[in-house]
């Protein structure tokens, strides 16, 4: 139970881990955008997705992120994927028929469209896994705060949001520990969290949730008092314990992201048939 931490940050020290969190968040956003773009005809789309897959795979290898985590997240989604496959097979009726199951015609198109979804899902999970396993939660909030800075000018209390967020992140392990403790205490009173009928399961969950809620409410009240007692002013100007310097490397990284993104977006906008062109050249 205590192994629940946000995104499972893994304690390694590779160049990806050391990268400025702002760059990493921007990079992730970029990947999330380009994963959902369309690059023209089907084969070209698949080629691009393959290309992204390779890039992400290389990044994962460099940062020594285990692929097992991606696989675990995917495993949790198997039912959804199956459902999507069935829905696609039943509803997509355009293009050539691939094969028949009894009377039911299955089209190439249905499988291809399902393939898109699955590949996008895999790429998405790879991207987020990469980010969360190489960036500490605190660095993530810092990056988010930085990204949201422009909102300050329209009077959005960005640093209050960031503070709330980092406090919430800070308390995830504490809550997990607390939940573990309460579960063991209720187990001593005859609750079985693993087995039992639905009604018993329900009772088990209630006996966990209510004390957990009560103690986290109490805890947050105490925390607020403690902050106030030490003169915390939510509107005051904050300084950082760990400073992230914006140096030339960061600029360089940002440039690479920008150029890459522009290139990919241009490809998507013009739907440039480069496979056709290469094939033409080869002839």
């Amino acid at each position, binding site marked *: 139970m*205590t192994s629940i931490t946000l995104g499972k940050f893994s*304690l390694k020290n590779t160049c990806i881990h050391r990268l400025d969190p702002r760059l990493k968040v921007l990079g992730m956003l970029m990947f999330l955008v380009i994963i959902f773009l369309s690059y023209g005809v089907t084969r070209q789309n698949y080629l691009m997705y393959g290309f992204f897959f390779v890039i992400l795979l290389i990044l994962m290898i460099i940062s020594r992120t285990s692929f097992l985590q991606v696989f675990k997240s995917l495993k949790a989604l198997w039912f959804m994927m199956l459902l999507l496959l069935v829905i696609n097979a039943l509803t997509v009726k355009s293009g050539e028929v691939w094969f028949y199951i009894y009377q039911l015609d299955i089209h190439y198109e249905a499988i291809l469209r399902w393939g898109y979804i699955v590949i996008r899902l895999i790429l998405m999970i790879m991207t987020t896994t990469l980010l969360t396993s190489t960036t500490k939660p605190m660095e993530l909030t810092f990056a988010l705060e930085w990204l949201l800075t422009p909102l300050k000018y329209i009077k959005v209390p960005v640093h209050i949001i960031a503070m709330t967020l980092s406090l919430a992140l800070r308390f995830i392990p504490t809550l997990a520990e607390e939940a573990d*403790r*309460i579960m*063991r*205490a209720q*187990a*001593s*009173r005859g609750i079985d969290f693993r087995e039992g009928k639905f009604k018993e399961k329900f009772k088990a969950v209630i006996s966990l949730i209510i*004390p957990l809620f009560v103690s986290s409410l109490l805890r947050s009240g105490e925390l607020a008092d403690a902050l106030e007692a030490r003169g915390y002013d939510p509107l005051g100007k904050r300084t950082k314990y760990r400073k992230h310097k914006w140096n030339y490397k960061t600029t360089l990284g940002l440039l690479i992201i920008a150029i890459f993104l522009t290139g990919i977006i241009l490809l998507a906008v013009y739907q440039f048939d480069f496979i056709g062109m290469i094939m033409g050249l080869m002839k």
Partner: protein
Amino acid sequence: MLGKFTSVNYVYGKEGTALASSALSDINLTIDDHVFLALVGETGSGKSTLVQHLNGLLLPTSGTVQVSHYLLKTEKKKKYYIDLDKEQGKHPKRKQFKVKDLRKFAGLVFQFPEYQLFEETVLKDVMFGPLNFGMEEKKAEAIAKAALKLVGIGESYYSRSPFELSGGEKRRVAIAGIIALEPKVLVLDEPTAGLDPKGEKEMMELFDKIYQSGKSIILVSHNMDLVLKYAHEVCVMNKGKLLKVSSPLEIFQDEEFLSSTAIEPPLVFKTALELKKAGLDLNLDNIKDIPSLAEEIRKAKKND
């Protein structure tokens, strides 16, 4: 024999990973029937970990724990709950016991048990345990009321929400929740920490009463006054190891041993020791608290 730990090791977290930390190492302990046993040691020495083995919440990473006829062990990452009374059964499944039976046999009151209250009313919360163990509603209610009476919670509290009670009252209700299970062994993890002196005294008197009624008490405590007064046997733990098991009298007299630990004998006992050194003929066996010390001094004076 009530219980037996044989070469018990316990490791938190997955073994072999960076998160693994050993909390118990090579614990060997035999617990007699009908004991009032105290478990002392610095925080983090593994007391809470040890007591959670007694009702099968934790299973030893290696070694075996036996409580009454229930045997707990882990082999090749598989957990075994073996009922020694059914040893004759050939099929391994038949030898298994339900862990619930052990939970009822050894009632465990956690450190800060007030955080486990959750029902709408005090009475319902105390009934929760008995109901979970399959008791009828009527009987559970009667038992719950009796348990509440024992811990000094009056009838006017029955229909109140447990969340609006004071810290001490919550603690009593939570303890009543375990007493209502009618366990053969009551295991208490720092039950009086944070209570006022009067509440502490009342609680300890209650535990002693339960002990007198034929049950066993295993108590984790930092309060040596209580250990001296109530316990018949003391286990001293340090850094996951069991340093010493003997009577309070022996431990508090063993200066060499005491100097190697952070245990401070009770003031009453130290006073008695000094008096004895100064020539007063005291029977240390009888000294439990201030009144008994006074009585001993009176006797010694008379004999002079």
